[in-house]
Protein backbone atom coordinates (compact mmCIF):
# COMPACT_ATOMS: atom_id res chain seq x y z
CA UNK A 1 0.00 0.00 0.00
CA UNK A 2 1.53 3.31 -1.09
CA UNK A 3 1.56 6.32 1.22
CA UNK A 4 -1.82 7.87 0.64
CA UNK A 5 -3.01 11.30 1.72
CA UNK A 6 -6.56 12.27 2.57
CA UNK A 7 -7.07 13.97 -0.80
CA UNK A 8 -5.69 10.92 -2.68
CA UNK A 9 -8.17 8.67 -0.95
CA UNK A 10 -11.19 10.91 -1.31
CA UNK A 11 -10.30 11.46 -4.98
CA UNK A 12 -9.88 7.74 -5.68
CA UNK A 13 -13.30 7.02 -4.15
CA UNK A 14 -14.99 9.90 -5.99
CA UNK A 15 -13.52 8.67 -9.29
CA UNK A 16 -14.61 5.12 -8.44
CA UNK A 17 -11.03 3.80 -8.66
CA UNK A 18 -11.61 2.13 -5.32
CA UNK A 19 -14.31 1.97 -2.69
CA UNK A 20 -14.33 2.98 0.94
CA UNK A 21 -15.19 -0.63 1.83
CA UNK A 22 -12.20 -2.00 -0.11
CA UNK A 23 -9.92 0.49 1.61
CA UNK A 24 -11.28 -0.36 5.04
CA UNK A 25 -10.71 -4.08 4.35
CA UNK A 26 -7.15 -3.33 3.12
CA UNK A 27 -6.35 -1.38 6.27
CA UNK A 28 -7.78 -4.09 8.51
CA UNK A 29 -5.67 -6.73 6.72
CA UNK A 30 -2.61 -4.60 7.27
CA UNK A 31 -3.47 -3.98 10.93
CA UNK A 32 -4.02 -7.69 11.56
CA UNK A 33 -0.57 -8.44 10.17
CA UNK A 34 1.58 -5.47 11.29
CA UNK A 35 -0.01 -4.71 14.62
CA UNK A 36 0.82 -8.09 16.15
CA UNK A 37 4.32 -6.72 16.54
CA UNK A 38 3.60 -3.00 17.05
CA UNK A 39 0.61 -3.06 19.42
CA UNK A 40 -0.95 0.27 18.39
CA UNK A 41 -4.59 -0.83 18.57
CA UNK A 42 -6.63 -1.84 21.61
CA UNK A 43 -10.02 -2.32 19.93
CA UNK A 44 -11.13 -2.62 16.30
CA UNK A 45 -14.65 -1.53 15.34
CA UNK A 46 -15.11 -3.23 11.98
CA UNK A 47 -18.88 -3.20 11.98
CA UNK A 48 -19.06 0.54 12.55
CA UNK A 49 -16.29 1.19 10.00
CA UNK A 50 -17.88 -0.92 7.27
CA UNK A 51 -21.32 0.62 7.84
CA UNK A 52 -19.78 4.08 7.38
CA UNK A 53 -17.80 2.91 4.33
CA UNK A 54 -21.06 1.60 2.86
CA UNK A 55 -22.71 5.01 3.26
CA UNK A 56 -19.78 6.70 1.51
CA UNK A 57 -19.77 4.15 -1.32
CA UNK A 58 -23.51 4.64 -1.83
CA UNK A 59 -22.94 8.40 -2.15
CA UNK A 60 -20.09 7.85 -4.62
CA UNK A 61 -22.21 5.43 -6.64
CA UNK A 62 -24.94 8.05 -6.93
CA UNK A 63 -22.36 10.61 -8.03
CA UNK A 64 -23.12 12.84 -5.03
CA UNK A 65 -20.45 15.29 -3.87
CA UNK A 66 -18.35 13.60 -1.20
CA UNK A 67 -17.63 15.19 2.19
CA UNK A 68 -14.01 16.27 2.88
CA UNK A 69 -12.89 13.08 4.66
CA UNK A 70 -15.01 10.66 2.64
CA UNK A 71 -13.86 7.09 3.16
CA UNK A 72 -10.61 8.07 4.87
CA UNK A 73 -9.52 5.37 7.35
CA UNK A 74 -8.72 7.01 10.68
CA UNK A 75 -8.16 5.79 14.23
CA UNK A 76 -8.78 7.33 17.64
CA UNK A 77 -6.77 7.38 20.85
CA UNK A 78 -8.66 5.34 23.42
CA UNK A 79 -9.29 8.34 25.69
CA UNK A 80 -12.06 9.59 23.41
CA UNK A 81 -15.52 8.17 23.83
CA UNK A 82 -17.03 6.17 20.98
CA UNK A 83 -20.68 5.27 21.36
CA UNK A 84 -21.09 1.50 21.57
CA UNK A 85 -17.35 0.86 21.11
CA UNK A 86 -15.27 -0.08 24.18
CA UNK A 87 -13.21 2.85 25.51
CA UNK A 88 -10.59 2.05 28.15
CA UNK A 89 -8.28 5.08 28.50
CA UNK A 90 -5.58 2.39 28.60
CA UNK A 91 -6.78 1.42 32.08
CA UNK A 92 -8.06 -1.80 33.60
CA UNK A 93 -10.55 0.27 35.59
CA UNK A 94 -12.44 0.87 32.30
CA UNK A 95 -11.74 -2.56 30.81
CA UNK A 96 -15.37 -3.23 29.92
CA UNK A 97 -16.64 0.35 29.54
CA UNK A 98 -18.98 0.94 26.58
CA UNK A 99 -19.67 4.69 26.23
CA UNK A 100 -23.25 5.80 25.63
CA UNK A 101 -22.22 8.79 23.46
CA UNK A 102 -19.53 10.04 21.06
CA UNK A 103 -16.76 12.51 21.71
CA UNK A 104 -17.52 15.67 19.65
CA UNK A 105 -14.24 15.43 17.71
CA UNK A 106 -15.01 11.83 16.71
CA UNK A 107 -18.59 12.69 15.74
CA UNK A 108 -17.33 15.56 13.57
CA UNK A 109 -14.86 13.27 11.78
CA UNK A 110 -17.58 10.77 11.00
CA UNK A 111 -19.96 13.52 9.88
CA UNK A 112 -17.21 14.55 7.43
CA UNK A 113 -17.16 11.00 6.02
CA UNK A 114 -14.22 9.47 7.89
CA UNK A 115 -14.14 5.72 8.54
CA UNK A 116 -13.09 5.03 12.14
CA UNK A 117 -11.09 1.79 12.20
CA UNK A 118 -10.57 1.43 15.93
CA UNK A 119 -9.18 2.66 19.22
CA UNK A 120 -5.52 3.26 19.89
CA UNK A 121 -3.29 2.26 22.78
CA UNK A 122 -1.93 4.90 25.14
CA UNK A 123 -0.50 5.41 28.59
CA UNK A 124 -3.15 4.82 31.25
CA UNK A 125 -5.33 7.97 31.43
CA UNK A 126 -2.76 9.59 29.10
CA UNK A 127 -0.22 9.69 31.95
CA UNK A 128 3.18 8.92 30.54
CA UNK A 129 5.74 9.68 27.86
CA UNK A 130 6.41 6.22 26.42
CA UNK A 131 3.06 4.32 26.33
CA UNK A 132 4.69 1.80 28.69
CA UNK A 133 2.04 2.75 31.28
CA UNK A 134 -0.72 1.16 29.18
CA UNK A 135 -2.45 -1.44 31.31
CA UNK A 136 -2.74 -3.62 28.17
CA UNK A 137 0.52 -3.88 26.27
CA UNK A 138 3.47 -1.81 25.11
CA UNK A 139 3.63 -0.16 21.70
CA UNK A 140 6.80 -0.57 19.65
CA UNK A 141 8.17 2.29 17.58
CA UNK A 142 7.69 1.31 13.91
CA UNK A 143 11.06 2.93 13.07
CA UNK A 144 12.95 0.79 15.62
CA UNK A 145 10.99 -1.88 17.41
CA UNK A 146 13.34 -1.95 20.41
CA UNK A 147 12.30 1.63 21.20
CA UNK A 148 9.25 3.37 22.62
CA UNK A 149 6.89 5.28 20.28
CA UNK A 150 6.70 8.11 22.82
CA UNK A 151 3.57 8.89 24.74
CA UNK A 152 1.05 9.18 25.88
CA UNK A 153 -0.49 8.97 22.37
CA UNK A 154 2.04 6.29 21.33
CA UNK A 155 -0.58 4.14 19.59
CA UNK A 156 -1.74 7.10 17.49
CA UNK A 157 1.79 7.99 16.35
CA UNK A 158 2.72 4.35 15.65
CA UNK A 159 -0.51 3.65 13.72
CA UNK A 160 0.12 6.60 11.38
CA UNK A 161 3.86 5.88 11.06
CA UNK A 162 3.17 2.21 10.20
CA UNK A 163 0.40 3.20 7.75
CA UNK A 164 -2.29 1.39 9.72
CA UNK A 165 -4.37 4.60 9.58
CA UNK A 166 -4.14 7.63 7.29
CA UNK A 167 -4.44 9.97 10.26
CA UNK A 168 -5.34 9.66 13.93
CA UNK A 169 -6.57 11.67 16.85
CA UNK A 170 -4.50 11.99 20.00
CA UNK A 171 -4.66 14.06 23.14
CA UNK A 172 -1.91 16.34 24.45
CA UNK A 173 -1.78 17.42 28.11
CA UNK A 174 1.99 17.98 28.34
CA UNK A 175 3.30 16.93 24.93
CA UNK A 176 1.41 13.69 24.36
CA UNK A 177 0.79 14.44 20.66
CA UNK A 178 3.99 16.29 19.71
CA UNK A 179 6.49 14.03 21.53
CA UNK A 180 5.29 10.71 20.01
CA UNK A 181 4.96 12.41 16.60
CA UNK A 182 8.62 13.38 16.92
CA UNK A 183 9.67 9.88 18.05
CA UNK A 184 7.80 8.15 15.21
CA UNK A 185 8.57 10.61 12.41
CA UNK A 186 5.06 11.92 11.71
CA UNK A 187 3.24 15.26 12.01
CA UNK A 188 1.49 15.96 15.33
CA UNK A 189 -0.51 19.09 16.12
CA UNK A 190 -1.71 20.40 19.46
CA UNK A 191 -4.16 23.22 18.70
CA UNK A 192 -4.84 26.26 20.91
CA UNK A 193 -6.72 25.55 24.14
CA UNK A 194 -10.39 26.07 23.24
CA UNK A 195 -9.92 25.45 19.50
CA UNK A 196 -11.25 21.85 19.66
CA UNK A 197 -14.04 20.72 21.99
CA UNK A 198 -13.00 18.37 24.80
CA UNK A 199 -16.52 16.95 25.14
CA UNK A 200 -16.22 13.18 25.38
CA UNK A 201 -12.48 13.25 26.12
CA UNK A 202 -11.80 11.31 29.33
CA UNK A 203 -10.33 14.06 31.50
CA UNK A 204 -6.76 13.98 32.81
CA UNK A 205 -6.06 17.68 33.57
CA UNK A 206 -8.91 19.79 32.25
CA UNK A 207 -7.05 23.10 31.91
CA UNK A 208 -4.21 21.42 29.98
CA UNK A 209 -6.00 18.71 27.92
CA UNK A 210 -6.18 19.19 24.15
CA UNK A 211 -7.35 17.00 21.24
CA UNK A 212 -5.42 17.14 17.98
CA UNK A 213 -4.41 15.24 14.85
CA UNK A 214 -1.52 13.00 13.79
CA UNK A 215 -0.91 12.75 10.05
CA UNK A 216 1.74 12.03 7.44
CA UNK A 217 1.60 15.58 6.04
CA UNK A 218 0.90 19.06 7.38
CA UNK A 219 -1.93 19.39 4.87
CA UNK A 220 -3.66 16.29 6.23
CA UNK A 221 -3.27 17.63 9.77
CA UNK A 222 -4.86 20.90 8.57
CA UNK A 223 -7.75 18.99 7.00
CA UNK A 224 -8.44 17.08 10.21
CA UNK A 225 -8.13 20.23 12.33
CA UNK A 226 -10.56 22.11 10.07
CA UNK A 227 -13.05 19.29 10.60
CA UNK A 228 -12.83 19.00 14.40
CA UNK A 229 -12.30 22.69 15.35
CA UNK A 230 -14.94 25.16 16.44
CA UNK A 231 -17.39 26.00 19.17
CA UNK A 232 -19.30 23.16 20.80
CA UNK A 233 -22.01 24.10 23.27
CA UNK A 234 -21.16 20.92 25.21
CA UNK A 235 -17.72 22.33 26.16
CA UNK A 236 -17.95 25.78 27.72
CA UNK A 237 -14.20 26.30 27.21
CA UNK A 238 -14.46 25.79 23.44
CA UNK A 239 -13.98 29.20 21.86
CA UNK A 240 -16.69 31.12 20.05
CA UNK A 241 -14.26 32.02 17.25
CA UNK A 242 -14.63 31.33 13.52
CA UNK A 243 -12.58 28.44 12.09
CA UNK A 244 -10.37 29.56 9.19
CA UNK A 245 -9.93 27.34 6.15
CA UNK A 246 -6.58 25.99 7.33
CA UNK A 247 -6.00 24.17 4.06
CA UNK A 248 -6.38 27.35 1.98
CA UNK A 249 -4.08 29.18 4.42
CA UNK A 250 -1.27 26.69 3.71
CA UNK A 251 -0.80 28.05 0.23
CA UNK A 252 -0.11 31.62 1.33
CA UNK A 253 3.58 32.48 0.96
CA UNK A 254 5.75 32.67 4.08
CA UNK A 255 7.54 35.68 2.63
CA UNK A 256 4.75 38.23 2.42
CA UNK A 257 4.99 41.24 0.13
CA UNK A 258 5.54 43.65 2.99
CA UNK A 259 7.33 41.92 5.86
CA UNK A 260 8.91 38.49 6.22
CA UNK A 261 7.51 36.19 8.89
CA UNK A 262 9.61 36.30 12.01
CA UNK A 263 10.74 33.03 13.58
CA UNK A 264 11.96 33.26 17.18
CA UNK A 265 14.65 30.96 18.52
CA UNK A 266 14.82 30.81 22.33
CA UNK A 267 18.18 29.92 23.84
CA UNK A 268 16.41 28.16 26.73
CA UNK A 269 15.34 25.39 24.31
CA UNK A 270 18.93 24.69 23.24
CA UNK A 271 20.62 24.35 26.63
CA UNK A 272 22.05 21.50 28.69
CA UNK A 273 20.43 18.12 28.15
CA UNK A 274 19.81 18.61 24.43
CA UNK A 275 21.27 15.76 22.39
CA UNK A 276 23.95 17.22 20.04
CA UNK A 277 22.56 15.44 16.98
CA UNK A 278 19.04 16.71 17.71
CA UNK A 279 20.47 20.21 18.10
CA UNK A 280 22.31 20.03 14.76
CA UNK A 281 19.29 18.71 12.84
CA UNK A 282 16.91 21.29 14.38
CA UNK A 283 19.36 24.13 13.74
CA UNK A 284 19.63 23.03 10.11
CA UNK A 285 15.82 23.10 9.88
CA UNK A 286 15.76 26.65 11.25
CA UNK A 287 18.37 27.58 8.64
CA UNK A 288 15.95 26.21 6.02
CA UNK A 289 13.24 28.52 7.37
CA UNK A 290 15.65 31.43 6.90
CA UNK A 291 16.30 30.31 3.32
CA UNK A 292 12.54 30.30 2.75
CA UNK A 293 12.53 34.01 3.54
CA UNK A 294 11.68 33.96 7.24
CA UNK A 295 13.61 36.29 9.50
CA UNK A 296 15.22 34.35 12.38
CA UNK A 297 15.19 36.35 15.62
CA UNK A 298 16.92 35.36 18.88
CA UNK A 299 14.46 35.55 21.80
CA UNK A 300 14.31 34.52 25.44
CA UNK A 301 11.65 32.57 27.34
CA UNK A 302 13.31 33.07 30.72
CA UNK A 303 11.05 30.93 32.91
CA UNK A 304 11.30 27.76 30.79
CA UNK A 305 13.29 25.81 33.41
CA UNK A 306 10.34 26.15 35.81
CA UNK A 307 7.82 24.66 33.38
CA UNK A 308 8.22 20.99 34.36
CA UNK A 309 7.87 21.58 38.13
CA UNK A 310 4.86 23.90 37.60
CA UNK A 311 3.32 21.46 35.14
CA UNK A 312 3.61 18.42 37.39
CA UNK A 313 1.82 20.25 40.21
CA UNK A 314 -1.01 21.68 38.09
CA UNK A 315 -1.50 18.49 36.06
CA UNK A 316 -1.49 16.12 39.03
CA UNK A 317 -3.72 18.38 41.14
CA UNK A 318 -6.33 18.45 38.37
CA UNK A 319 -5.91 14.71 37.78
CA UNK A 320 -6.47 13.88 41.44
CA UNK A 321 -9.84 15.64 41.24
CA UNK A 322 -10.81 14.26 37.81
CA UNK A 323 -10.00 10.67 38.73
CA UNK A 324 -12.07 10.77 41.91
CA UNK A 325 -15.02 9.69 39.73
CA UNK A 326 -13.57 6.19 39.34
CA UNK A 327 -15.14 4.65 42.41
CA UNK A 328 -16.73 1.45 41.13
CA UNK A 329 -20.30 2.73 41.44
CA UNK A 330 -21.57 3.84 38.02
CA UNK A 331 -19.17 2.26 35.53
CA UNK A 332 -15.97 0.29 35.26
CA UNK A 333 -14.30 -2.22 37.51
CA UNK A 334 -15.61 -2.85 41.03
CA UNK A 335 -13.74 -4.83 43.68
CA UNK A 336 -15.66 -7.06 46.07
CA UNK A 337 -15.93 -5.53 49.55
CA UNK A 338 -18.16 -5.44 52.61
CA UNK A 339 -18.37 -1.70 53.14
CA UNK A 340 -18.62 1.27 50.78
CA UNK A 341 -15.32 2.77 51.89
CA UNK A 342 -13.54 -0.55 51.45
CA UNK A 343 -15.12 -0.90 47.99
CA UNK A 344 -13.79 2.50 46.86
CA UNK A 345 -10.29 1.69 48.05
CA UNK A 346 -10.07 -1.84 46.72
CA UNK A 347 -11.56 -0.73 43.39
CA UNK A 348 -9.06 2.09 42.96
CA UNK A 349 -6.14 0.01 44.28
CA UNK A 350 -6.90 -2.81 41.85
CA UNK A 351 -8.07 -0.69 38.91
CA UNK A 352 -5.32 1.93 38.65
CA UNK A 353 -1.69 1.31 37.66
CA UNK A 354 1.33 2.64 39.56
CA UNK A 355 1.87 5.87 37.58
CA UNK A 356 -1.79 6.85 37.92
CA UNK A 357 -1.62 6.24 41.68
CA UNK A 358 1.63 8.21 41.87
CA UNK A 359 0.04 11.22 40.16
CA UNK A 360 -3.13 11.03 42.25
CA UNK A 361 -0.91 10.98 45.36
CA UNK A 362 1.23 13.92 44.21
CA UNK A 363 -1.83 15.96 43.22
CA UNK A 364 -3.69 15.17 46.42
CA UNK A 365 -0.61 16.12 48.44
CA UNK A 366 -0.23 19.44 46.55
CA UNK A 367 -3.88 20.30 47.23
CA UNK A 368 -3.94 19.17 50.86
CA UNK A 369 -4.23 21.52 53.81
CA UNK A 370 -0.92 23.19 54.57
CA UNK A 371 0.60 22.58 51.12
CA UNK A 372 -1.93 24.30 48.83
CA UNK A 373 -0.21 27.71 48.86
CA UNK A 374 3.32 26.32 48.68
CA UNK A 375 2.64 24.03 45.74
CA UNK A 376 -0.63 24.52 43.87
CA UNK A 377 -0.98 28.28 44.19
CA UNK A 378 2.74 28.75 43.56
CA UNK A 379 2.54 26.62 40.40
CA UNK A 380 -0.45 28.63 39.13
CA UNK A 381 1.54 31.84 39.59
CA UNK A 382 4.50 30.38 37.74
CA UNK A 383 2.04 29.42 35.00
CA UNK A 384 1.24 33.13 34.67
CA UNK A 385 4.97 33.90 34.33
CA UNK A 386 5.45 31.23 31.67
CA UNK A 387 2.46 32.56 29.72
CA UNK A 388 3.83 36.12 29.95
CA UNK A 389 7.12 34.87 28.49
CA UNK A 390 5.22 33.83 25.36
CA UNK A 391 3.17 37.05 25.30
CA UNK A 392 6.41 39.06 25.27
CA UNK A 393 8.01 36.82 22.64
CA UNK A 394 5.01 37.04 20.33
CA UNK A 395 5.28 40.83 20.34
CA UNK A 396 8.53 40.31 18.44
CA UNK A 397 7.97 37.13 16.40
CA UNK A 398 5.17 35.26 14.61
CA UNK A 399 6.38 31.72 15.24
CA UNK A 400 8.86 30.11 17.66
CA UNK A 401 11.05 27.19 16.54
CA UNK A 402 12.54 24.61 18.91
CA UNK A 403 13.27 20.91 19.21
CA UNK A 404 10.19 18.85 20.14
CA UNK A 405 12.21 16.60 22.46
CA UNK A 406 15.72 16.66 23.89
CA UNK A 407 16.51 13.18 22.48
CA UNK A 408 15.23 10.76 19.83
CA UNK A 409 13.10 7.76 20.92
CA UNK A 410 14.59 5.95 23.89
CA UNK A 411 14.71 2.19 24.49
CA UNK A 412 11.76 0.28 25.91
CA UNK A 413 12.32 -0.08 29.66
CA UNK A 414 15.02 2.60 29.81
CA UNK A 415 13.12 5.10 31.98
CA UNK A 416 10.32 2.98 33.33
CA UNK A 417 11.65 2.92 36.90
CA UNK A 418 12.63 6.58 37.08
CA UNK A 419 9.51 8.78 37.02
CA UNK A 420 11.47 12.04 37.14
CA UNK A 421 13.62 11.08 34.12
CA UNK A 422 10.40 10.21 32.26
CA UNK A 423 8.85 13.60 33.19
CA UNK A 424 11.91 15.40 31.81
CA UNK A 425 11.19 13.93 28.34
CA UNK A 426 8.43 16.59 28.18
CA UNK A 427 10.72 19.52 28.93
CA UNK A 428 10.14 21.33 25.60
CA UNK A 429 6.46 20.52 25.23
CA UNK A 430 4.72 21.28 28.55
CA UNK A 431 5.13 25.05 28.12
CA UNK A 432 2.59 25.18 25.28
CA UNK A 433 0.02 23.36 27.43
CA UNK A 434 0.50 25.72 30.37
CA UNK A 435 0.19 28.77 28.09
CA UNK A 436 -2.48 27.23 25.83
CA UNK A 437 -0.68 28.21 22.61
CA UNK A 438 -0.72 25.93 19.55
CA UNK A 439 2.29 23.71 18.80
CA UNK A 440 3.20 21.31 16.04
CA UNK A 441 5.95 18.71 15.60
CA UNK A 442 7.10 17.93 12.07
CA UNK A 443 9.83 15.51 11.00
CA UNK A 444 13.07 17.38 10.20
CA UNK A 445 15.67 14.63 9.84
CA UNK A 446 17.13 11.49 11.39
CA UNK A 447 20.07 10.80 13.68
CA UNK A 448 22.87 8.37 12.81
CA UNK A 449 20.71 5.43 13.91
CA UNK A 450 17.93 6.52 11.51
CA UNK A 451 15.77 7.64 14.42
CA UNK A 452 13.48 10.54 13.53
CA UNK A 453 13.89 14.03 14.99
CA UNK A 454 11.07 16.55 15.28
CA UNK A 455 11.05 20.31 14.72
CA UNK A 456 8.57 22.00 17.03
CA UNK A 457 6.85 25.27 16.12
CA UNK A 458 4.66 27.45 18.37
CA UNK A 459 2.38 30.31 17.35
CA UNK A 460 0.09 32.85 19.01
CA UNK A 461 -3.22 31.73 20.52
CA UNK A 462 -5.65 30.75 17.73
CA UNK A 463 -3.05 31.35 15.01
CA UNK A 464 -2.90 27.76 13.76
CA UNK A 465 -3.09 29.23 10.25
CA UNK A 466 0.41 30.73 10.52
CA UNK A 467 1.73 27.70 12.38
CA UNK A 468 0.54 25.32 9.66
CA UNK A 469 1.70 27.64 6.87
CA UNK A 470 5.29 27.71 8.15
CA UNK A 471 5.23 23.95 8.85
CA UNK A 472 3.92 23.28 5.34
CA UNK A 473 6.52 25.55 3.71
CA UNK A 474 9.28 23.76 5.62
CA UNK A 475 7.86 20.34 4.71
CA UNK A 476 7.99 21.25 1.00
CA UNK A 477 11.77 21.71 1.24
CA UNK A 478 12.35 18.10 2.30
Amino acid at each position, binding site marked *: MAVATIDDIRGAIAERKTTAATLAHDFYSRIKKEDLEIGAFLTLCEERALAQAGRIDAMAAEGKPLPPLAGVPLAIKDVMMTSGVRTTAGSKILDDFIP*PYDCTAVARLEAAGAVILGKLNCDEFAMGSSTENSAYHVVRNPRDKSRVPGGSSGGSAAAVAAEMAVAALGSDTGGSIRQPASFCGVVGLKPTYGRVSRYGLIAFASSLDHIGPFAKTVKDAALVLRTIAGRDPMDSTSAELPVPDYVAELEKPVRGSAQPLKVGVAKEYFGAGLDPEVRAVVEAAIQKLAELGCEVVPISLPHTEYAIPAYYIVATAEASANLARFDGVRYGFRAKANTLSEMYRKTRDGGFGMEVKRRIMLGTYALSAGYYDAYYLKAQKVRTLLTRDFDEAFKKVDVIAAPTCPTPAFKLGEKVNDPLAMYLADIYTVTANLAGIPGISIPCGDNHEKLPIGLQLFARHFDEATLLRVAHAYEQTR
Partner: protein
Amino acid sequence: MKVTDKDVAYVADLANLDLTGEERARMLRDLNSILEYIERLGELDTGNVAPMAQVSDRYGVDESRHGSERFAYAIREDVKDGLRKSLPHQVALDNAPDTDGTFFEVPKVIER
Protein backbone atom coordinates in the same frame (compact mmCIF):
# COMPACT_ATOMS: atom_id res chain seq x y z
CA MET B 1 13.05 13.73 53.26
CA LYS B 2 10.11 16.04 53.06
CA VAL B 3 7.34 13.48 52.85
CA THR B 4 7.14 10.92 55.66
CA ASP B 5 5.49 7.51 55.98
CA LYS B 6 2.74 9.19 57.91
CA ASP B 7 2.15 11.71 55.08
CA VAL B 8 1.91 8.91 52.53
CA ALA B 9 -0.70 7.14 54.66
CA TYR B 10 -2.65 10.38 55.20
CA VAL B 11 -2.63 11.37 51.50
CA ALA B 12 -3.54 7.83 50.39
CA ASP B 13 -6.50 8.03 52.76
CA LEU B 14 -7.62 11.37 51.26
CA ALA B 15 -7.35 9.86 47.77
CA ASN B 16 -9.30 6.70 48.65
CA LEU B 17 -6.32 4.47 48.00
CA ASP B 18 -5.00 1.77 50.34
CA LEU B 19 -1.69 0.94 48.62
CA THR B 20 0.33 -2.17 49.45
CA GLY B 21 3.40 -1.94 51.69
CA GLU B 22 5.63 -2.11 48.63
CA GLU B 23 3.66 0.64 46.89
CA ARG B 24 3.92 2.86 49.97
CA ALA B 25 7.70 2.49 50.03
CA ARG B 26 7.94 3.36 46.33
CA MET B 27 5.58 6.28 46.79
CA LEU B 28 7.69 7.63 49.65
CA ARG B 29 10.81 7.50 47.50
CA ASP B 30 9.19 8.86 44.31
CA LEU B 31 7.22 11.70 45.95
CA ASN B 32 10.36 12.89 47.72
CA SER B 33 12.42 12.82 44.55
CA ILE B 34 9.73 14.65 42.52
CA LEU B 35 9.02 17.22 45.24
CA GLU B 36 12.73 17.91 45.61
CA TYR B 37 12.78 18.82 41.92
CA ILE B 38 9.64 20.93 42.33
CA GLU B 39 11.22 22.92 45.19
CA ARG B 40 12.99 25.08 42.60
CA LEU B 41 9.73 26.98 42.08
CA GLY B 42 10.67 28.65 45.38
CA GLU B 43 13.50 30.48 43.57
CA LEU B 44 10.93 32.70 41.84
CA ASP B 45 9.45 35.75 43.49
CA THR B 46 5.74 35.50 42.73
CA GLY B 47 4.57 38.01 45.35
CA ASN B 48 2.82 40.23 42.82
CA VAL B 49 1.85 37.59 40.29
CA ALA B 50 -1.79 36.56 39.87
CA PRO B 51 -2.43 32.80 39.71
CA MET B 52 -3.63 31.41 36.38
CA ALA B 53 -6.28 28.72 36.68
CA GLN B 54 -7.00 28.32 33.02
CA VAL B 55 -6.29 29.67 29.56
CA SER B 56 -9.86 30.60 28.63
CA ASP B 57 -9.86 33.32 31.28
CA ARG B 58 -7.44 35.24 29.10
CA TYR B 59 -9.88 35.87 26.27
CA GLY B 60 -13.32 36.87 27.41
CA VAL B 61 -12.79 38.18 30.95
CA ASP B 62 -13.96 41.77 31.32
CA GLU B 63 -11.80 43.22 34.09
CA SER B 64 -13.85 46.43 34.18
CA ARG B 65 -16.76 44.49 35.67
CA HIS B 66 -17.06 42.91 39.09
CA GLY B 67 -17.65 39.47 40.57
CA SER B 68 -19.19 36.87 38.31
CA GLU B 69 -20.02 39.62 35.77
CA ARG B 70 -16.37 39.43 34.74
CA PHE B 71 -17.10 36.02 33.25
CA ALA B 72 -20.15 37.12 31.26
CA TYR B 73 -18.53 35.66 28.13
CA ALA B 74 -19.06 32.16 29.47
CA ILE B 75 -22.76 32.62 30.24
CA ARG B 76 -25.40 31.32 27.88
CA GLU B 77 -29.16 31.33 27.79
CA ASP B 78 -30.91 28.49 29.59
CA VAL B 79 -31.97 25.72 27.25
CA LYS B 80 -35.33 24.34 28.27
CA ASP B 81 -34.68 20.70 27.47
CA GLY B 82 -30.96 20.76 28.10
CA LEU B 83 -28.18 20.94 25.53
CA ARG B 84 -28.46 17.23 25.13
CA LYS B 85 -31.26 14.93 26.13
CA SER B 86 -30.56 13.12 29.38
CA LEU B 87 -29.43 9.54 28.98
CA PRO B 88 -32.34 7.12 29.11
CA HIS B 89 -32.50 5.46 32.54
CA GLN B 90 -31.48 2.03 31.25
CA VAL B 91 -28.54 3.41 29.26
CA ALA B 92 -27.24 5.20 32.35
CA LEU B 93 -27.31 1.89 34.23
CA ASP B 94 -25.80 -0.21 31.44
CA ASN B 95 -22.17 0.17 32.55
CA ALA B 96 -22.86 -0.17 36.27
CA PRO B 97 -21.28 -3.14 38.06
CA ASP B 98 -24.39 -3.64 40.22
CA THR B 99 -27.94 -2.31 40.02
CA ASP B 100 -31.43 -3.38 41.06
CA GLY B 101 -32.77 -2.15 37.72
CA THR B 102 -33.67 1.26 39.15
CA PHE B 103 -30.71 2.32 41.30
CA PHE B 104 -26.97 1.78 41.42
CA GLU B 105 -26.29 -0.67 44.25
CA VAL B 106 -23.36 -0.39 46.66
CA PRO B 107 -22.39 -2.20 49.86
CA LYS B 108 -24.39 -1.13 52.91
CA VAL B 109 -23.39 2.35 54.11
CA ILE B 110 -25.34 2.70 57.34
CA GLU B 111 -24.94 0.19 60.16
CA ARG B 112 -27.93 -0.36 62.38
